[in-house]
């Protein structure tokens, strides 16, 4: 008696799991071959599930799928060396006409710090999708009330200010304080940067006042900011952020505009027609309601760009990152 019931449950479990798997993979059965929703594409994400690239990539794929612009995406998370491994794989897929890879500023930096030959400029640029401002965060009882207080203290004792960030060397939270230090006349090699494994551990360090200041995108800190446990001294973009009571750096007299951005690349060696097709696809995706909702839900700022504009931007970012990291002896 004991034996038959669990067997039945196991079977039900298996069926349910299979049914769910079918829903997840969304088996599109026989359809017209001209129908765009019949076209299966692959998307490569250069970090783990739940990270920034992952959320952006999956939101874009979902907007495309739900509007029948494409069929179901095959999404793979290729982790390793902050995206360097994924970039190498993109090179290896040279000429593949069904693959897109999500990337961004952090990947540009990681390619340098890991001394990889798979650089972004070798790939086929498709589109820039979103940008996120960096915020300068301090604990509620910090002596720094304004960005000026911070600048004064930092200039006085460059190494004495513990600056935390949620990314490893070459990532946006590392590049930003280095460029900020440079902009206010502090030697970047003197900056005491402490790298945390993402926003969670960084929040902990800030709440416990283990570090003096944190630099990161603000999405993961909204709750703490609203609650008054953390304060924002300034944001790094060209314009103020909605809902955040803090000036931009330029308003505060620091000549620096810095944003973390994410975009899409395709493998090298694809045809112009294929590049145009992918560009067109993402342009259509950009106009969907699903994408607009995703932008709003995640607090991303739209900065869509394609073609020559994105290509030039990529080259300019690559230069700037290389300069910063070379100065630090990391590239």
């Amino acid at each position, binding site marked *: 008696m*004991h*034996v038959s*019931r*669990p*067997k039945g*449950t*196991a079977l*039900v*479990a*298996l069926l*349910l*799991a299979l049914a*769910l798997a079918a*829903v*997840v993979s969304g088996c599109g059965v026989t359809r017209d071959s001209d129908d765009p929703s019949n076209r299966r594409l692959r998307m490569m994400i250069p970090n*783990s*599930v*739940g990270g920034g690239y*992952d*959320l952006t990539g*999956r939101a874009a794929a*979902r907007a495309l799928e739900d509007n029948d612009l494409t069929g179901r995406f095959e999404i*793979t998370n*290729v*982790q*390793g*060396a*902050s995206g*360097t*491994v994924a970039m*190498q794989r993109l090179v290896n897929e040279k000429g593949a006409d069904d693959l897109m890879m999500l990337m961004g500023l952090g990947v540009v930096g990681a390619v340098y710090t*890991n001394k*990889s030959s798979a650089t972004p400029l070798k790939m086929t640029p498709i589109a820039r999708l979103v940008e996120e401002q960096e915020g300068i965060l301090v604990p509620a009882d910090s002596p720094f009330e304004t960005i000026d207080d911070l600048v004064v203290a930092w200039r006085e004792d460059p*190494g*004495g200010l*513990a600056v935390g960030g949620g990314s*490893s*060397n070459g990532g946006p939270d590392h590049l930003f304080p280095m460029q900020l230090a440079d902009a206010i006349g502090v030697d970047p090699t003197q900056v*005491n940067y*402490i*790298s945390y494994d*993402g926003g*969670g*551990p960084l*929040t*902990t*360090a800030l*709440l*416990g006042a*283990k*570090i003096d200041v944190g630099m990161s995108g603000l999405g993961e800190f*909204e*709750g*703490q900011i*609203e*609650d008054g*446990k953390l304060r924002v001294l300034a944001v790094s973009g060209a314009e103020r952020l909605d809902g955040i009571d803090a000036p931009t750096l330029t308003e505060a007299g620091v000549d620096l505009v810095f944003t973390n951005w994410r975009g899409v690349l395709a493998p090298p060696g694809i045809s112009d027609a294929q590049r145009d097709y992918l560009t067109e696809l993402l342009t259509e995706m950009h106009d969907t309601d699903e994408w607009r909702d995703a932008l709003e*839900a995640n607090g991303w700022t739209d900065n869509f760009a394609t073609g020559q504009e994105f290509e030039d931007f990529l080259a300019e970012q690559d230069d700037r990152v290389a300069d910063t990291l070379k100065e630090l002896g*990391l590239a």
Partner: protein
Amino acid sequence: MDLLLDGFQTALTPENLLFAALGVLLGTAVGVLPGIGPAMTLALLLPVTYSVGADSAIIMFAGIYYGGMYGGSTTSILLNTPGESSSVITAIEGNKMAKAGRAAQALATAAIGSFVAGSIATVLLWIVTPQVADIVVTLGSPSYFALMVLALFAVTAVLGASKLRGFIGLFLGLAIGLVGTSTGQARLTFGEPLLADGIDIVVVAVALFAIGEALWVAAHLRRKPLEIIPVGQPWMSREDWGRSWKPWLRGTAFGFPFGALPAGGAELPTFLSYATEKKLSKHPEEFGRGAIEGVAGPEAANNASAAGTLVPLLALGLPTTATAAIMLVALQGYGFQTGPTLMDDHPDLVWGLLASLFVANALLLVLNLPMAPLWAKLLRIPRPYLYAGILFFASLGAYSVNFQAFDLALLLVIGVLGFFMRRFGIPVLPLIIGVILGPKLEEQLTTALKISQGDVSTLWSEPVAVVVYVVMALLLVAMAVAGLRRPAAAEHSPAADADDTDEKELVER
């Protein structure tokens, strides 16, 4: 209290009960597959859940979380293939029990222990979450460093009969832990970007346990008579209960606080629990040969720490594990403002989740306990087929961590290392602990020293750190006194390692 009752009302609607059951089953199924953890499952299911209500989705996630933790221990015990780093310790005694025909007992003590620990931890969650949240963030790197040193100290208890071999294992583990770019400089990566993030602990554990063992069995298959593993009693005996309940409670006591600490992790309490049980056991000679305490304690610790991770998540909006991070994303996807205000703004959701954790835990027990004897029968499969299956599972698991063929090569190389470790009687556990602890220890030390700009006194600047060092000093003194009192007894300890026995067998042949 009213809030809690409301929570149960939410969790116990037929619809939500169904979602909880579905989550538990899915979680167990996924936990059984090594390499695909609960975090991956949640991420895959995330798009699906947006079409059901927030409370149902969160309740299903709770089920997946607990189910995944439990499923991981099943493969550890039966196949010596831990699916998660937190169930590595379970494999050590659990698989030995299974081979001695006590798989059903091992599975049962794991299931009941998980239930007991999960329930106690859930109650603790109800009580302490609002108060404790502000305290946990005051712990910094010096405190964590002290706790890791304590764990390293505890390792001496699991070194095995031969201290030399134990230390060889530990240093091999620390060496493997050095691989990667954790300090910003690439170390032992040989220019290979795939090594830049270090070697995944799941790959190391699966290789040492499953591959090493399969090679060992293959090397002996023709020389040893084929022994069928006895199935034995299907249920836990009175003695098993008597030997399990204390480890369950002690495991819970280790697991919950470590889970609640933002950098505590789920592995540390499991091997602190293992070391404690080995020290306290009335049957220390059974450790290494299948001691039920060695399964009961770590399994309880593992589950209690899973509940503990919800403390910073719910109270502060701080995700401390990958699974918790996805749950946070899910909450945000439903438009909830996560952070310190979540408990005040959405008490119904939080208490519903806490109640459903309890429900998921109970469901897990009801669904899995009757399965234990069934699972145990799996081991009656003739060895060549059984090990072929284990090899397949192990490779699948290692591959699915990252979908890299490179990991398969690593798996084989470390598997061969595992084979030779058995040949020379080097215990595996110190190595595993070295791999896990080494990088964490280093990370906390560098962070602490970076913040203090190289001032070493920062290491004892936090009260928790001071307390830990004092406890360690007292333990050292106690050990020295005990050692003086009976110097000969330690030398001829009956707790010879099973690995040593294997080696002797080989030499005799």
